[in-house]
């Protein structure tokens, strides 16, 4: 755990006094301190291209009065700097007359260990594995023209000091291991990308030569794409594979169910609470409490313990995801979804691990039910326009389905749909729910945070596929 006041001219009790003085008569607010250490080691083009280390330290001071948020952040943890921030907040919130809400739920549960993954494996060992990855892949297939592999490791220590001195802390490890390959055959180039990660040591993900299966998967995707035909264009049935394709859920409904957009009534879902927004059998939760998952958090960035929030239950919209600000203004409670990329940013309600739960049909049944459509297995990324509800995601591995059978692979294409109506088009829910491999980052208002997704195979009656073949 970091001692943020150790090398500062500012003592903890002085900081507490400034915080309490600034936040009196505010409705909420806190001082958020963060110390993060991260590393990146990259192999590319047969060489170790980059070995870098970052250490980041700073605070963000927030005061909230009614709907207004005043925020100030700095890298310098000093008496001067905190006082300047305090003045800044006070000058924004000129005449405050609220009552500070001291209530914050408590929990002893922890969803990951207090470790520093960077220190648990030496640089030489990491470089050795990256070189092995490169040699392994290049010896497997002569068509391989490029291999990129990298390790990203991080340990983030946070401390939240509230008015009155209540203090909440968390230490968050996070790692990611990625492999990307490019194949070239007969003048055509295609890539395949795969990775694993979460809130454990590198070795938890690499033991028993597990890195080889990451390499194999990246190579498999690239090989499939090398044989792909142009994708069709137009509306058709779509079968989504289990696991990572759940970024459809994340984009199509997840963002639209975040508290801020609904309080502001700019989400296409804001007036649909308690109504049917999905087919029967569709249940979606956002869960921050799964051990060691990329999107899990012991406490959120306001200090609220995370939970498993039911968003949609058997087709009915049940809850939005809330931070403290939006929960107070919507007269409900925080769901432990208040997150920020780092101390430079304000808190927003965000997703953690967003999951559609299993039903009872098989993927086989779904494929058989499609005359003409596509089977999408892997995705790059997605995006949504919250207000119109339209969302897209990009296939990186997909096949055509013809008369109930999986056919040729098709080129990467964008799929587009309408968030509030897409889940009503889900006609089969599989029994094969799977978590993603732990590589997702969600962007909102310029802030990236690690998230997870999960789903079983699903059949969607109608979506627009953005290929080039008419």
């Amino acid at each position, binding site marked *: 755990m970091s001692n943020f006041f150790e*090398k500062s001219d500012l003592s903890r009790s002085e900081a507490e006094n400034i915080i309490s003085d600034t936040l009196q008569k505010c409705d909420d607010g806190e001082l958020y301190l963060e110390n993060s250490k991260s590393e990146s080691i990259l192999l*590319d083009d047969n060489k*170790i291209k980059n*070995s*870098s*280390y*970052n*250490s*980041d*330290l700073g605070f963000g001071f927030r005061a909230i009065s009614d*709907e*207004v*948020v*005043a*925020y*100030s*952040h700095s*890298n*310098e943890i000093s008496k001067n700097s905190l006082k300047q*921030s305090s003045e*800044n907040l006070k*000058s*924004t919130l000129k005449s405050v007359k609220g009552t500070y809400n001291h209530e914050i739920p408590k929990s002893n549960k922890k969803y990951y260990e207090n470790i520093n993954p960077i220190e648990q494996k030496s640089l030489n060992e990491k*470089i050795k594995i990256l070189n092995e990855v490169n040699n392994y892949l290049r010896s497997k297939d002569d068509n391989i*023209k*490029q291999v990129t592999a990298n390790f990203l490791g991080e340990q983030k220590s946070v401390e939240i000091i509230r008015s009155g001195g209540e203090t909440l802390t968390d230490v968050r490890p996070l790692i990611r291991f990625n492999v990307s390959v*490019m194949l070239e055959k007969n003048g055509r*180039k*295609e*890539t395949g990308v795969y990775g694993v990660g979460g809130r454990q040591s590198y070795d938890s993900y690499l033991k028993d030569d597990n890195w080889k299966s990451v390499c194999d998967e990246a190579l498999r995707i690239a090989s499939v794409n090398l044989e792909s035909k142009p*994708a069709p*264009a*137009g509306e058709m049935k779509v079968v989504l594979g289990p696991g990572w394709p759940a970024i459809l859920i994340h984009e199509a409904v997840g963002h639209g169910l975040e508290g801020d957009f609904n309080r*502001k*009534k*700019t989400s296409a879902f804001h007036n649909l609470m308690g109504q049917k927004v999905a087919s029967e059998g569709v249940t979606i939760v956002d869960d921050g409490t799964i051990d060691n998952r990329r999107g899990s958090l012991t406490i959120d960035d306001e200090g609220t313990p995370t939970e498993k929030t039911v968003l949609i239950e058997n087709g009915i919209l049940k809850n939005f995801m809330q931070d403290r600000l939006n929960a107070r203004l919507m007269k409900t409670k925080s769901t432990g979804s208040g997150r920020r990329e780092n101390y*430079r940013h304000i808190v927003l309600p965000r997703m953690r691990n967003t999951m559609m739960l299993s039903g009872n049909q098989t993927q086989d049944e779904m494929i058989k039910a499609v005359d003409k459509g596509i089977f999408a297995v892997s995705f*790059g*990324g997605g*995006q*949504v*326009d*919250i*207000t*119109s509800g*339209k969302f*897209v*995601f*990009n296939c990186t591995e997909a096949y055509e389905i013809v008369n109930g059978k999986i056919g040729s692979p098709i*080129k990467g*294409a*964008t799929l*587009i749909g*309408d968030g509030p109506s897409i889940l009503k088009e889900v006609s089969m829910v599989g029994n094969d729910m799977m978590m993603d491999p732990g590589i997702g980052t969600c962007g909102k208002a310029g802030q990236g945070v690690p998230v997870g997704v999960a789903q079983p195979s699903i059949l969607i009656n109608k979506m*627009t*596929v*953005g*290929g*080039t073949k*008419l």
Partner: protein
Amino acid sequence: MVKDQEFLEKKASYCLGLAKKLGATESSVIVNNSVSETVNFRNKKLDESNRSDDLGISITTYIGKKKSSISSSNLLDDNLNILIEKCVETTKNTPEDEFNSLPDKDLLAKEVKDLDLYDDTHIENDQKIDYLKKLESAASSDKKIVNTESSFTQNKSNFILANSEGFCAGYKTSSFTASSVTVAKDEKSMERDYEYSSKCFLKDLDDAEELGKQAANQTIRKLSPKKIGSEKIAIIFDKRIAKGILSTFASAISSSAISRGTSFLKDKVNQKIFSDTINVLDKPDILKGLGSRNFDSEGVKTDTLKLVDQGILKHYLIDTYNGKKLNLKSNGRCGGTSNLYFENGNISFKDLLNSKSKSLYITETIGHGSNIVTGDYSVGATGFLVENGEFKYPINEITIAGNFKDMFKNITLANDLDFKYATNSPTMMIEGMVVAGK
């Protein structure tokens, strides 16, 4: 107040000295400070104020052909000592790469011209609030507008780049940015759109009322969109989307993508990749330019480059490392382009709209659908159906797709270029793309 040159230089030279003492044969350092103040409004009321003061340092050390780097926001000497020691230690343990080195000394910038990039004016939050009040009142005058969010940011930055070859330079820059996001609603639909203005000098910023009105109009006209059928049709890209196609072109000619063999434009120098009428320039010395600079992020001087001359690709964007790998000299593009733009075409916006009996005018795309390895392009889009030069009705929930290799050859540009961003394009028409809809 943003830190002065003296403070940044002192930190930089401390780091270079320490790296040398600890065994680095060469090193470089960037120290920067950026102070910004933002005020956000929502529905004509103050919503958020945000002040940020960011310090950062990044150091790269070399031992012969070995290299490693560190970065930090904590500039206290104690912390720098630990980090530089770690950096040198990591450098020792990192394998050699024959292409690692500082830039050639004769390529480094010799002079720092004043490009008029810093406005000393300080705008108080109360003045920002006045601007946003005017903006939001104009934005919400039509009752179809149900939500307005707007923002005003003042940013002042300063930096120093120094290396062990004696290079040491940096300068202040400023920016003033206002934006307006509006939501409009009718019985059938809810839509969002925006308008934005960013300038180095406060006095050049767009008028608040104009900005608000523009955002509102652009949103209202999107209401009650239709979905159209799948077909091959001419696409007209609004300037704010056309500039993204130019950015994709820039990433495909970056020396890193070229040297790694992961670009569809590899080995295309001196070949025709656009039609005859297309010229692309990267001009770093535009006064008050949003992308203007004296040198790149390695200190290499940046001259104007005509990247594409009458459709022919003339240059890649080259940094030191990839340049050495490709046996080419750096042209000062480490960190990318400066002020990048398509030169004007020779027909007016109106004539471009009129040139086809039917076309799609695209105002927004979503998704990450540009693949620079294959050149494939497929994104979600919203816009308008244009018939005989007139906007007929809004459309959404469609995708547009093609391959850049073909798209580039079928570009027609209007003559309405302006310098609103660092990368700019006139309105652009591309024929032969596929729309997927119903």
